[in-house]
């Protein structure tokens, strides 16, 4: 028997997660074989290919927003989680303090340095290997230690001195002294070995934002340290995460089921962010249609849904007596609006592609691992 094909309306109904004043309904996905009697729902690549859509809303180097439509939450969440925790970047991991007479303690300073986002040639980052830390239990051969392919070295050496040219009544310490403020731009990169081929010119390892304040000094105080940057992932420490934020939300849906007119319409529009609800006059045609609820209201203003995209789904409209039963709020189950904000090492759209690649690689590796089980 050929599998039943549910009607378009039924499929549309299943796509909507209901959002009510106090409850959320229709939460789990039901597109699995065996859930709906007679329907197939088995994995079909062609069908997925036909239904899956990507829409871009914004694509700046450090911030991208796009919709993935036709995906399950399990997969959408995997992409998001990989973006946050499993794409490697470079960050300062070891700080060797030769001298630090500033008021900020060594360990606090080191922690601050670690959190500074770095950037450098992507080719070089990909060329670099993981730095293997010496393991705590001492079995097996010792890891090779720092080398040009696993460690990037940066230096920070600043000394604060008095500025003899400063005006007598000067109070701004930045003018009164040299190097009163230590910024991220004061860090210098020292290429080692083959790093010279990769990290040159624009591609040199440098802080993404040169104006990050690291410490404040006064005359006679000095910071002199060497920093070792290694490749790591966000799961190990947030400083390695390539994104500032990577989030998704579901596309909101607002359905006006019965007419909202006149003053009520204005109040209704105020329940939503600007541009979500619009006001339009009831046309003569609307008024003529029997059972539309617009009979005899020609010329009055009615509320219409303009653009649900910007809605926050605050449910404010559900709190008012006059809108009871006139409006239904929901979210579209398989419409994910991503927002990816890069810290600067990679471009945001590249990051997402990288995340998909990581998931695929994971699968490939594990699948290979299964061969041992077969034997």
């Amino acid at each position: 028997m050929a599998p039943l094909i549910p009607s378009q309306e039924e499929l549309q109904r299943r796509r909507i997660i209901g959002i009510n004043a106090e409850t959320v309904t229709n939460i789990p996905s039901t597109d699995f074989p065996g859930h709906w009697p007679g329907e197939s729902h088995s994995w079909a690549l062609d069908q997925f290919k036909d239904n899956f859509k990507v829409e871009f809303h914004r694509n700046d180097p450090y911030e991208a927003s796009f919709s993935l439509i036709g995906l399950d939450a399990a997969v959408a969440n995997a992409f998001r989680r990989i973006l946050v925790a499993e794409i490697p970047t470079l960050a300062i991991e070891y700080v060797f303090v030769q001298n630090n007479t500033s008021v900020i303690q060594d360990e606090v300073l080191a922690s601050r340095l670690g959190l500074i986002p770095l950037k450098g040639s992507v080719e070089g980052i990909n060329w670099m290997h993981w730095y293997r830390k010496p393991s705590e239990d001492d079995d097996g051969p010792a890891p090779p230690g720092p080398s040009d392919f696993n460690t990037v070295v940066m230096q920070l050496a600043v000394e604060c001195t008095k500025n003899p040219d400063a005006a007598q009544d000067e109070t701004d310490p930045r003018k009164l002294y040299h190097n009163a403020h230590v910024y991220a731009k004061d860090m210098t990169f020292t290429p080692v070995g083959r790093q010279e081929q990769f990290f040159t010119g624009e591609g040199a390892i440098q802080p993404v934002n040169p104006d990050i304040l690291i410490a404040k000094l006064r005359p006679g105080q000095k910071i002199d340290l060497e920093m070792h940057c290694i490749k790591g992932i966000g799961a190990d420490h947030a400083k390695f995460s390539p994104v500032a934020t990577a989030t998704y939300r579901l596309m909101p849906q607002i359905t006006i089921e019965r007419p909202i007119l006149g003053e009520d319409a204005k109040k209704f529009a105020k329940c939503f962010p600007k541009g979500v609800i619009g006001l339009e006059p009831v046309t003569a045609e609307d008024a003529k249609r029997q059972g539309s609820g617009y009979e005899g209201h020609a010329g009055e203003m009615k509320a219409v849904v303009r653009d649900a995209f910007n809605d926050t789904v605050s449910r404010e409209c559900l709190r008012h007596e006059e809108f009871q039963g006139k409006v239904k709020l929901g979210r579209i189950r398989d419409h994910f609006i991503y927002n990816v904000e890069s810290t600067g090492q990679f471009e945001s759209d590249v990051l997402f592609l990288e995340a998909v690649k990581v998931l695929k690689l994971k699968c490939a590796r594990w699948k290979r691992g299964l061969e041992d089980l077969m034997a």
Partner: protein
Amino acid sequence: MPASVHSEEAHENDQSMMDAEMEEPVNPILLDEKRVIILPGSTDTAASFQFEGEGHTLGNALRYTIMKNPAVEFCGYTIPHPSDAKMHVRIQTDNTTTALEALEKGFDDLMDLCDVVTEKFTVARDQYKDDAAYAMEG
């Protein structure tokens, strides 16, 4: 050159090892002892697999694709203890296939899905870039 870092030449033996690893960048937390085992008490059509070093990221996505297989009667995943980096996947199938085959198919389907996402994402992004460039000119 900083004294604490030496250049590659001194490590030629290590390099050959590194090259083999370089083929595919490996996740450091998964680097050591990345293993999958079948938990005791399994039969051909009903088995629990334990993945070391995996979490909800792979677990839930994999569960989804395995559940999409009509020969699978049950599939679920769990992380039995939050401080153990271990993820279990339980699969029960009908007798047209085995749990192991269902797991393999799950991986295959997930990889196919990733390919489609990459392809469509790239097309949409390039289209968006072209449109933006055109808008700038026009």
